[in-house]
């Protein structure tokens, strides 16, 4: 009921947020034509004031960002569509994969080398985690780094 009230109050589709209480996993999706600001997300978590001596922690966050991947100063960057935000892209060295399997980050670089246009990247945001309240004290350092797990290329 409270959730529905909030959805009405903020004109947000309640289907945008899913809660899996058993695992502590929350999924979210921006409204069509909008984007979710991670700084505001951080601020909102802080605003719940659910911190201190409770053992709570942000373990990880995976995001999908759409835009254009470019090579700039020997660094792959994702320029987000509809925003001046830039994410740095890097290899997820902690990910487990079969020995013969190429890392998604390497595959992304190969796709760019073939002249393909990478339009969406999904991955873990580096440094976006930690125990409360320490994690909530300051915004994670910019630019944020996405450790690439998946990506999409433009369809011809």
């Amino acid at each position: 009921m409270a959730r529905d009230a909030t959805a009405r109050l903020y004109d947000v589709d309640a289907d945008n947020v899913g809660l899996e209480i058993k695992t502590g996993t929350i999924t979210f999706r921006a409204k069509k034509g909008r984007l979710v600001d991670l700084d505001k997300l951080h601020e909102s978590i802080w605003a719940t004031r659910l911190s201190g001596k409770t053992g709570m922690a942000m373990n990880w966050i995976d995001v999908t960002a759409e835009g254009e991947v470019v090579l700039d100063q020997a660094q792959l960057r994702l320029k987000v569509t509809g925003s001046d935000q830039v994410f740095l892209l890097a290899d997820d060295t902690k990910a487990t994969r079969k020995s013969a399997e190429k890392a998604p980050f390497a595959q992304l670089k190969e796709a760019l080398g073939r002249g393909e246009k990478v339009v969406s990247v999904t991955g873990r945001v580096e440094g976006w985690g930690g125990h409360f309240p320490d994690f909530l004290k300051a915004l994670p350092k910019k630019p944020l780094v996405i450790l690439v797990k998946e990506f999409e290329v433009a369809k011809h």
Partner: protein
Amino acid sequence: MAKNAWPFALGLSLLIASSAGAQVTSGVLNVTQCEMS
């Protein structure tokens, strides 16, 4: 707060966050739950 109730509050805060700002189109986050009762 009842045990396990806090993710709801966090979820609600996400609803608010999703109405503003910029950056990502979707995401999934994982948090360690408190043991308050």
